[in-house]
């Protein structure tokens, strides 16, 4: 029973670590997507950077909300 629990915990820890590692791949993607999208809406560089920052934060918050929903759904199972 204990070994099964430890095995399950180790698996969950491994999956969580792998998930956290993979999440880092989102950073360059969010950066480039927000910069390019902002650059298609403004011409001045300062306006582009401000828009990009706001857009990047919006993406992170949106992804966080989706993560919470998925976690909640998995908790319901």
């Amino acid at each position, binding site marked *: 029973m204990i070994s099964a629990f430890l095995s399950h915990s180790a698996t969950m820890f491994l999956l969580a670590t792998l998930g956290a590692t*993979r999440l880092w*791949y989102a950073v*360059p*993607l969010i*950066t*480039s*997507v927000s*910069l*390019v*999208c902002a*650059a*298609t*809406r*403004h*011409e*001045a*560089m*300062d*306006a*582009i950077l*401000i*828009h990009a920052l706001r857009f990047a934060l919006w993406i992170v918050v949106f992804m966080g909300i989706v993560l919470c929903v998925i976690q909640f759904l998995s908790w319901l199972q």
Partner: protein
Amino acid sequence: MAKTVVDTSADDDSVVEIDLKDPRLAAFLAWLVPGLGHFYQRRTGKGVLFFVCIVGTFYYGMYIGSGRVVYASTADVFSMRFLQDRWQYVCQVGVGLPALPALVQRQLVREHKKPLFGGEFMRPPYDAPPPGTARFESPDETDRTHTVVHPDELAKWNYELGDYFEIGTVFTVIAGLLNILAIYDAYGGPLIIMPPDDKKKQLAPAQ
């Protein structure tokens, strides 16, 4: 062709006038090399931004996927099979010149010739082992003394790269799609964001 754009998000409500020159040529150049259309229009800052972001994303995806994630199907270009085999290439080719070697590699494989660069770079995966190779196999990840036999080369690539095959594909696909936005920006200038009502009143000439 000159276009006047009101950048409403800037603090000083600055009016930026952009000379788009020949928009069609600029759009073609923007597709060929991300940012080149903007350099042609002397919009250097945005040209550098587009080039670094889009080409950087594309080649980072190529690096993650070991050069195997950008390839075109060997089926006829205008057939459904072309999309079914690798629809992602339709998005990836939006990045222009950096993705075009895949078409050369595809043609060489179709003609049973040796691909360029001597390996798997942008080459479509083989369905059957090439001459001199008995089967597609790779070492077992859990036990190196064993080998895993794959039905085709795409299965081998997916086994060897794991998640990185998908992550690299996503990066390169997004790079191609982002360049479509950049192409539109070179053709028509930035999308105009309508100013809020209070700013409209400030910008309107006094009557």
